[in-house]
């Protein structure tokens, strides 16, 4: 009796697996790469792309996968031809350009939103409201030994500084170190590093002396546990906000966010061009929903022209 039971169990499982393969064919998502769009890259841009994918799908579009291995990791996959779109929170750098050229991957660079890179502390932090670029550099620079708040400013209390930031594969990391420390990648190494901005939120909000930096949308989502610091880029303290990022007063931490789209995907895969045009058309709505700084109408028109130029 038990042999039969076991054999029936096994055959049920085999049947299940076969239906999995079978269903793959006529489901709305065929896994054969024809209509499936694969994206990867920045964890800052990730939520934007995910929002775009959801909206597109509910408007009759297809399936999109979104990975968040970091801007750097995303580009490596992109230039290896593994993804259709690379999400990036900084521009592609020379090495990556060379990599793509070598592999014969041609692309178009599209700006999809703007970000106000935000420095955050927990809401329990009552002493810090504004930091200058020099202070930030002193904290985050390579070899920095700053370990408590009163070393940043003597008027601050002697609370230990607990640093959380993106990892080295992150475009946010690259951008921040570039503008604050003067060189991309130059940073102290003794902080809690994570490619996932959510972990930074958790870390900072849970530590009394916490300080971290991440994309604006992550701050917006967590205003009940995080406080944003104003940044003095030389002309007074400016708080990160949609307006300040759009008009350029939030320097030096206002930055463009990109989607790099592979040209061959645009021409071969109708879904890709469909998705990208949809994203640009609705860029403002998507950005607002996902709590990014949206492009204005002119900027969107500019990007749409770019897209058209690339595919003609």
């Amino acid at each position, binding site marked *: 009796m038990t042999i039969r039971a076991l054999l029936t169990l096994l055959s049920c499982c085999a049947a299940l697996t076969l239906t999995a393969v079978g269903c793959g064919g006529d489901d709305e998502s065929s896994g054969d790469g024809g209509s499936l769009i694969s994206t990867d890259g920045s964890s800052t841009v990730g939520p934007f792309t995910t929002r775009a994918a959801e909206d597109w799908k509910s408007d009759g579009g297809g399936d999109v996968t979104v*990975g968040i*291995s970091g801007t750097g990791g995303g580009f490596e996959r992109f230039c290896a031809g593994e993804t259709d779109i690379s999400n990036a929170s900084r521009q592609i750098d020379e090495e990556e350009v060379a990599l793509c050229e070598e592999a014969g991957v041609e692309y178009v660079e599209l700006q999809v939103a703007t970000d106000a890179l935000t420095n955050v502390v927990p809401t329990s932090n009552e002493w810090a409201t504004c930091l200058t670029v020099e202070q930030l550099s002193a904290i985050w620079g390579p070899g920095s030994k700053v370990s408590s708040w009163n070393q940043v400013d003597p008027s601050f209390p002697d609370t230990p500084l607990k640093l959380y930031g993106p990892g080295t594969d992150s475009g946010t990391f690259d951008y921040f170190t570039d503008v604050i420390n003067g060189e991309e990648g130059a940073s102290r*190494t003794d902080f809690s590093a994570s490619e996932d901005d959510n*972990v930074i939120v958790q870390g900072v909000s849970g530590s009394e002396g916490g300080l971290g930096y991440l994309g604006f949308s992550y701050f917006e989502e967590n205003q009940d546990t995080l406080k944003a610091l104003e940044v003095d880029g030389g002309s007074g303290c400016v708080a990160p906000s949609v307006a300040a990022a759009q008009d350029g007063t939030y320097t030096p931490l206002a930055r463009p966010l990109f989607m790099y789209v592979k040209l061959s995907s645009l021409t071969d895969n109708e879904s890709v061009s469909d998705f990208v045009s949809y994203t640009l058309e609705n860029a403002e709505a998507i950005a607002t929903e996902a709590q990014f700084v949206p492009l204005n109408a002119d900027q969107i028109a500019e990007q749409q022209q770019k897209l058209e130029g690339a595919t003609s």
Partner: protein
Amino acid sequence: MTTADATVARPAATTLPRKKVRWGEQVVHLVLFVAAAISVLTTVGIVVSLVLPALDFFREVSPVDFFTGTTWAPLFLDAQFGVVPLVVGTFVISFWSALVAFPLGIGVAIYLSEYAAPRATAFLKPILEILAAIPTVVLGYFALTFVTPFLRDQLNVQVEIFNALSASLVLGIMLIPTVATLSEDAMAAVPRDLRDGGYALGADKLQVSTRIVVPAAVSGIIAAFVLAFSRAVGETMIVLIAAGQLAQITFDPRETIETITAFIGATGNGDVPTGSTEYKTIFAVGLTLFVMTLVMNLISIRLVRKYREVYE
């Protein structure tokens, strides 16, 4: 009244005829051997997949720096490859979880083996198995969202949001079934005579348990300890979620640390490009981990053999 007939027919030859080769049997034997060989192939695969890139890695980074260096910053601009912080982090977690699992596990084992009624044991052992079956991701979630706040708010222990203590406590509880089941098996194998002898001499339960049964079962108990310790060393999800990503040398369990497994899990997320430095560090570190658990396993086998008491 017939005596046994002395003229029973006998085969002419005194040796048995040559066995006819049954090809079916040979095929079966071969198929079975192939199945068994798959496990060998797996080990070969593990060794090859770890050793080759690791060797590649050690060509670029000196093993001395790797094994004795105290700063772990492999992905930064000024990369440092000292694995000591990761090893210390792993050790801290394993130590504290062993501190929880060993006494509690032995206690549970002694209770089930010496004190509990057979019906109670039959009911309790499956529940113990349930504890062992809980997926580690759920345990990690529990550590982060229940244990850490509990330590902070209820017990006033000032732990970081990501800390080694919560992870160790939960990991220790997870290992109790391992210690308990193996120790209990070892204790059950101690012959009744030894116990009865003790009781006959007027010893009470405490004395019989601690002075007769446990010493007699010591080889099995030690094997249980070593196995549990090696599981603690190899555990990934609990530490990944709850213990943090800050490679620092500290023995204070309230601090954030990073274990070997957490580093591998955070860095190797399937999108790491082949041949990059990150890729190779995973293998070097993975090889270290593999060797550590292997050595512990061999020690455990050795210990069991050495201290096994043989009863007639």
